[in-house]
Each structure stands twice: as structure tokens, then as C-alpha cells.
């Protein structure tokens, strides 16, 4: 690519000399020269040719001198580098020029070999700066893209809770990065049945988010066919195993609540067991049922568990990002702290538990970073009759 160099000097012969000395580079299209007789003309040239790479400027010139030009140059948004030409030994002006952002200086009488080296050095420095600026622009575009993806991801998680008088629901997914691999879902299957899902995809970031999108769609679509919890998991597991070269997997719980009877059936795909919270505050961790994370091994069978919810009882689903939250002393939050928190609650509503448990974890973590996505889903059974 041709490098554009602006030469600023009030000496008319200088132009001819430059063109003669650099004729080969000009012919090879390495350099293209522009000329100005003083600082004003130089600024005009810069305006007309916004992509000038470097300026070679004299100091003493009429109308606007080189030192003033350097000052003006600082106000422009371009990366253009300036090299000043000074009288031999004129240290005062050289120091002033350097302090005003000049990249280098050469002295008169000009040694053209030295000038050529100086130009090459200046241009390669400029190239590094340009690459850096380009990289920052790409990075900032990517950050904006990630932020958008994060908003898209949050928007596909359900926000309005099912219009069902018998159940109240609250859920939250807080990703560790802009986008995450955790998700929750709930949906009406028929007049009597509601479906609930909580899930955690292996890894974090973009790959996890893509796998999350696929898993969520497959699970919801399959679940809405109305088959049993264990069948839904074995079907989705087989689908996720196909062409899964990256060995991604998702741990999940799928539960179906019969809102008329309070009977809840659930399947566990390698996920932390949910907890049942009774009206008196006592906590029961639901028994583990047979099953492993989805997407790992084709043909795996899942077992359905069954539990009865009495009026007022809650089910607390969570992902391991809550338990693995780490404080500055490198301690984990762990299930015992979560149980301690849930155990001590007077107000037992889905919203108060979600907000309270999140606060309990973030208080514990303090100023430490969030390593993993944290997701909670809480349902409360409140039959009307």
C-alpha cells in the first residue's frame, strides 16, 4: 500500500529535491508526496487528504510555523505522525517539538539516507498503531454483538408467568458473561398440567449459548407433545447425541405438575436435585432418579420420580453456579449454605426466595468475580379449593 507523506517547508527547492531523491520509491508506488509551504497549507492538505500517514515539517515558516502545526495536529483525530526538520543543535525547538507529540527529528543539512530510515521507522510505528486501532474497533463491535446476543437470550426465556391460578412462579437467570448456558422454561401442557425445566449447558459463553438455544427448543417442543418426563428426556438425549462432536452436554430437570392433584413427576438428567419446602419451612431434597446429563450417551434410559405437593408447598430448582460461587477466601457457597438460607425464611413465596437466595450468594461472594451462570426457578402450589 502506498504511504502518503506530507512535506511542509517554505523552501521552494526542497520539493524538487525530495521528488528527485525518492524517485524510485515514488515510481514503485511505495511513497506518494504532498507539499505545503507553511502550517496553514499543511492543515488544508490534511483536510483534503484525510489519510496522510506522516508529516515531515520544517520549524521556521511564515504564517504558521512547525511548532504551531504540531499543536494543531494534536487536536485532530488522525494517527498521523510528524517528524520535524530543525537546524543542527537547535535543542530548544527540538525539545518543544517532541513535547508537542513529534515522533522524531532530523537536522539540516539533511542526510537523505538518514531521512529514508526515519521515514521507514515512522511508517512502521504508524502501522502498529493502525493495527491496534483496527483491533479495538473489531473488539468493540464484538462486545456490542455479545451484548445484543445476551439481550436476545434473556428475551427468549419466559418472563410472563403462566396464567394458572393454582401455581405461582418466579425465575431468574444471571449469566457470568454477557451470554450464558443456563436456562429455565415453563409452559402449559393442558388444562391440568404445567411443565417446568431448569438446565445448565456445559461450558460458558458463545458455544454454551448456541447449545442452550438448541436444547431449549428440543426440550420444549418434545415436552409439549404431552409425553411423560422420562420419555421426553430419552428422546431429547438421543437427538442431542447426534453429531455432537464437541461433546457438549446439558444437565436438566424436567417436571410436570398436575395442578388439580398436586402430583409432580420429574426426570433428572444429571442435575442437582430440587428441594421441596413445606409450609412449616422444612426442606426435603427430592430423591435422585436414574439418569445422566443429556447429550453424552445415546440410548440412556431415564427414570421418573414422583412427589406430592401439598397446598402452599414450594419447589426450589437451581443450577450449580449458585453452589460453586466462590468468595475471596476461595470457599464455595455449597449446598449447606443454600439450605441454611432457605431454612431461615419467614416469607415463603417464589419471588422472595429467588431474590433472597441471589442476595445471599452475592453477599457471600463479596467482591469476587462471578464464574458461572446462576439460575433459579421456584414454584408454589396454591390450589383454589
Amino acid at each position, binding site marked *: 500500500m502506498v504511504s502518503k507523506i506530507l512535506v511542509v517547508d517554505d523552501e521552494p527547492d526542497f520539493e524538487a529535491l525530495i521528488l528527485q531523491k525518492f524517485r524510485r520509491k515514488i515510481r514503485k508506488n511505495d511513497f506518494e508526496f504532498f507539499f505545503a509551504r507553511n502550517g496553514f497549507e499543511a492543515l488544508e492538505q490534511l483536510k483534503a487528504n484525510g489519510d496522510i500517514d506522516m508529516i515531515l515539517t520544517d520549524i521556521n515558516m511564515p504564517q504558521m510555523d512547525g511548532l504551531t502545526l504540531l499543536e494543531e495536529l494534536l487536536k485532530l483525530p488522525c494517527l498521523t505522525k510528524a517528524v520535524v526538520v530543525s537546524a543542527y543543535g537547535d535543542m530548544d525547538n527540538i525539545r518543544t517539538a517532541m513535547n508537542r507529540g513529534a515522533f522524531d527529528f532530523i537536522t539540516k543539512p539533511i542526510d537523505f539516507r538518514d531521512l529514508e530510515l526515519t521515514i521507514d521507522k515512522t511508517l512502521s510505528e504508524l502501522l502498529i498503531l493502525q493495527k491496534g486501532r483496527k483491533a479495538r474497533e473489531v473488539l468493540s463491535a464484538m462486545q456490542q454483538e455479545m451484548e445484543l446476543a445476551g439481550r436476545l437470550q434473556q428475551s427468549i426465556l419466559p418472563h410472563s408467568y403462566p396464567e394458572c391460578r393454582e401455581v405461582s412462579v418466579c425465575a431468574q437467570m444471571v449469566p457470568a458473561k454477557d451470554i450464558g448456558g443456563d436456562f429455565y422454561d415453563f409452559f402449559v401442557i393442558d388444562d391440568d398440567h404445567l411443565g417446568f425445566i431448569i438446565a445448565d449447558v*456445559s461450558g460458558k459463553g458463545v458455544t454454551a449459548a448456541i447449545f442452550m438455544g438448541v436444547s431449549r427448543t428440543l426440550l420444549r417442543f418434545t415436552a409439549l407433545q404431552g409425553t411423560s418426563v422420562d420419555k421426553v428426556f430419552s428422546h431429547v438425549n438421543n437427538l442431542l447425541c447426534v453429531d455432537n462432536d*464437541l461433546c457438549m*452436554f446439558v444437565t436438566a430437570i424436567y417436571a410436570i405438575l398436575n395442578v388439580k392433584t398436586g402430583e409432580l413427576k420429574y426426570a433428572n*438428567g*444429571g442435575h*442437582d436435585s430440587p428441594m421441596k419446602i413445606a409450609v412449616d419451612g422444612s426442606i426435603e431434597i427430592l430423591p435422585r432418579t436414574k*439418569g445422566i446429563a443429556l447429550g453424552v450417551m445415546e440410548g440412556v434410559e431415564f427414570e421418573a420420580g414422583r412427589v406430592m405437593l401439598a397446598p402452599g408447598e414450594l419447589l426450589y430448582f437451581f443450577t450449580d453456579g449458585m453452589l460453586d460461587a466462590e468468595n475471596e477466601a476461595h470457599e464455595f457457597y455449597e449446598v449447606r449454605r443454600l439450605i441454611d438460607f432457605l431454612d431461615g425464611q419467614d416469607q415463603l413465596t417464589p419471588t422472595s426466595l429467588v431474590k433472597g437466595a441471589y442476595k445471599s450468594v452475592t453477599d457471600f461472594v463479596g467482591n469476587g468475580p462471578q*464464574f*458461572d451462570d446462576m439460575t433459579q426457578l421456584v414454584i408454589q402450589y396454591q390450589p383454589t379449593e
Partner: protein
Amino acid sequence: MLIEHEVRDGIDIISLIGRIDAQSAPGVNQEIGIVLDDKRGKMLIDFKELDYISSSGLRVLIAVSKQLKAVRGSLVLCNLDKKIYEVFDVSGFTAIFDISTTQEEALSMLGD
């Protein structure tokens, strides 16, 4: 995160030291991949000095296990502490990995 590798009686012994999380998992995957390239087909992964493993780490182990199965090789994990064993247990992976308590036991499983 550090990985140590030695070959004993034709068995690759990998020791994992530190934490495998989303950040360190790609490096672990790459280093074990280099060992797998030698196609000895028998691998022992020692968890004795592993402090933490996230789902990204589990993903790497599943990939290693699948690659070994594809060449009829075998993989045994050993020295999982209580917390790490729990991670395997919850995800159901105790059913798909051969896990032994000590390195000696693991070596004899692989030696047969």
C-alpha cells in the same frame, strides 16, 4: 493448571494439578490430545492434585473417553476427592467412567 504426563508399561498416566474451568479446559484438551496422538490406547487420569473441575472440564474428559473408545482403548480415573466425586455423581458420569480409588488399582485395571 498443570498437567504431568508419564508412560509406564505402555499406559499413559496423566496427573491433573490445579483447576480445570472454562479458561483452562482448552489447554488441557490440547495437551491430552497430543498424548492421544501416540495411540497407546490406555490412559489413567489421576485427580489427586486437582482442586476443582467445572462442566467445561467434564466435557474434555468425555471427549477423551469417546476418542479412546473409538480405538477400543480404555480410560480409568483415580483419586477423586469427595467434592469432585460428587460432581461426577450428580451429572451421572460415575456410570460412564471407570473410577478407582488409588493409582495402583487403576493401573491393575488397565493392565489386564
